[in-house]
């Protein structure tokens, strides 16, 4: 039996997270004021981290024996999509991943307490992406994404991941980001002495899936923003959504986000059932989701016209976040190369 419809329990999880985010972290929070200094303070996400922890979503997919909530990867994917819709700090996805990284069996000594602190949101984690991808970790330069208040930084490489403490980064300096709603720093990874390391490919696949889900959230939020706007914006005496050129762009937006969401769910279920083609489906999902997010974000600006190009409208943030999440856990450019050389899932029955 194939069933991609959420159960009533899963719908409840989605609704409770979406309700919290709509109330506490509406996307309008990120809209820049005229005061540039206020922008840096506009990001309330880290202050909301402990509230998100209280919702129980940070250890959602961790088994109860390991101190988690006991749901699965699928529920984490459902939640990550909501975080994408509200452009919640990328730190939230890094924290969800870090919970699984430290709860590995070989990390037993520190695992329980550390994982617990991560789940309650009392320890903040930020993701980092390599400045240039030569595959090396130590000695390489990274961008730390929205990591100003973070205690730990998560690096997801192609076949491993590591959680690096603040102290192990060298020459850390602030950089002006294209995305004004996050902080950006450049730093060199000094050593891995204080790191928690994990070379389990399933954690990399989990990272790709959560990033895919976040990207789907961006694609959907951009589409919904466009549809709401073209229903009310009038030109030539009628809503612009009545014009075929505009409505067809909206139809394409929905088609892209729908394809990306179906594939992300299918890939998550493949991973959850340990299907031999899970790695293939996960890479395909991230490629399709990244494409949907970046194209929908661009079309959303077009649909909004001049206002879409302004700083005071949030449309540009979808574009910028789509770039960020394309880079997390493997860019589309890289994954396309890997997908082309992967075994065909058709040989598997």
């Amino acid at each position: 039996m194939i069933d991609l419809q959420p159960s009533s329990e899963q719908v409840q999880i989605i609704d409770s997270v979406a309700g919290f985010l709509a109330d506490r972290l509406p996307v309008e929070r990120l809209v820049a004021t005229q005061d540039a200094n206020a922008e840096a303070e506009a990001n309330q996400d880290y202050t909301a981290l402990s509230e998100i922890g209280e919702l129980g979503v940070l250890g959602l997919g961790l088994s109860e024996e390991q101190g988690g909530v006991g749901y699965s990867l699928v529920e984490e994917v459902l939640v990550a999509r909501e975080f994408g819709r509200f452009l919640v700090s990328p730190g939230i996805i890094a924290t969800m991943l870090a919970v699984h990284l430290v709860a590995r069996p070989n990390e037993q000594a520190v695992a329980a307490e550390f994982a617990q602190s991560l789940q309650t949101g009392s320890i903040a984690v930020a993701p980092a992406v390599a400045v240039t991808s030569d595959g090396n970790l130590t000695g390489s330069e990274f961008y730390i994404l929205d990591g100003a208040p973070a205690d730990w930084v998560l690096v997801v490489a192609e076949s491993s991941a590591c959680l690096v403490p603040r102290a192990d980064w060298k020459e850390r300096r602030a950089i002006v980001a294209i995305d004004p709603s996050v902080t950006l720093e450049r730093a060199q990874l000094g050593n891995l002495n204080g790191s928690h390391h994990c070379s389990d490919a399933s954690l990399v696949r989990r990272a790709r899936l959560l990033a895919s889900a976040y990207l789907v959230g961006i694609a959907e939020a951009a589409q919904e923003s466009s549809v709401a706007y073209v229903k009310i914006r009038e030109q030539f005496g009628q809503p612009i959504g009545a014009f075929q050129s505009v409505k067809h762009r909206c139809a394409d937006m929905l088609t892209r986000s729908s394809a990306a969401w179906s594939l992300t769910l299918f890939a998550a279920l493949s991973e959850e059932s340990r299907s031999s083609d899970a790695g293939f489906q996960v890479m395909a999902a991230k490629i399709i989701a990244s494409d949907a997010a970046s194209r929908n974000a661009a079309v959303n600006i077009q649909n909004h016209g001049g206002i879409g190009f302004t700083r005071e409208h949030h449309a540009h943030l979808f574009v910028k976040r789509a770039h960020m999440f394309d880079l997390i856990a493997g860019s589309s450019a890289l994954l396309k190369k890997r997908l082309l050389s992967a075994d065909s899932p058709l040989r598997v029955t």
Partner: protein
Amino acid sequence: MHIEFTAQEQDFRAEVRDWLLAHRPKEQRPYSGQAMREFDLAWQRTQFEGGWAGISWPREFGGRGASLMEQLIWHEEYARARAPRAGACFVGLSHAGPTLIAHGSQEQRAFHLPRILDGRTVWCQGFSEPGAGSDLAALSTRAIVDGDHLVVTGSKIWTSYASHADFQELLVRTDSGGRKQDGISWVICDMKLPGIEVRPIATMIAPDDHHFAQVFYNDVRIPISNVVGEFNHGWAIANSTLGFERGTGFIADQIQNSELVEQLIVLARERRSGDGQGCMADDGDIGSRLAMLRAEMAAVRAMTYATISRAGHGNPGPEGSLVKLFFSEASQRLRRLSADILGAEVLELSADEGLTFAYLRSFAATIGGGTSDVQRNIISERVLGLPRGAR
């Protein structure tokens, strides 16, 4: 949410696979002429004798009565076994049959359904007209009541398999007083009636590829008892007919396209790139497009699974247009890529429905079964709720 097959479903898959491998035609399907009709009907007869005809039709009407999951498995195995497409039998099995089951009279069902199932009759569609394509409701082929007959005058176009068909699902205007959607009737038309003239139309593929035709009706007398459903209420019936087409009917096509991506990857690794350095697959542009299409075909499969999960029955509603739009555009890009991998050999028309033949046919993918523009109208107006405007 889950994607695991039950033991029962796995048994069903094994049964389907064994039967298809043993019974599918081994010879190449002729792509035109009487030989094509005979080939398609013979394959349909074989499926009927094996108990597989009308896989989605309810058992009480002679079908297999398969569940949606079983239909999915059937179509997956059908594609893997490289069984030939339904061809001339497609309209009867996927359009006319389901429409008669839903709206036909006892007599209409009793006569036609067994003949469709056991491979005795070929059906064609009579919907589009020279002046009514995407704006189907503007159709003007007229039917005037004369005693217990309708007298039909006008013309239909883009009718696939018209030269080979025994019957036609014909939409005619029986009242022109009100809205254009009102006053349309859905009629069973015997293609051998006097006054019907079929003029084959050569497609852009090859001079002898008469896949479709224009059909002319000069005072054709059709018994009123051939009207399906209510007189003047054929528009809703026609829409449900089109809905069947957007259900599970394209799963085999989707899988064939997934297999084509894999074949093209193999081909691109065998062929030298344009500058003679390395293979085509290592070419950045070709490689990137191959990878994207691999991902897109995976997405098509997942979308189909999502549609089946949502629908719970055969007719997916307006959301079916999302899959149709995404799939037809991706498959067109796939065929275009096959042409690029062929290099200069794309100039050579293969006589055996090879890659160039299929590439040329792919230009129809975004026109037939509702153009991509119509799909976008359906999605934006019926799914997203955008206002209807001037077309």
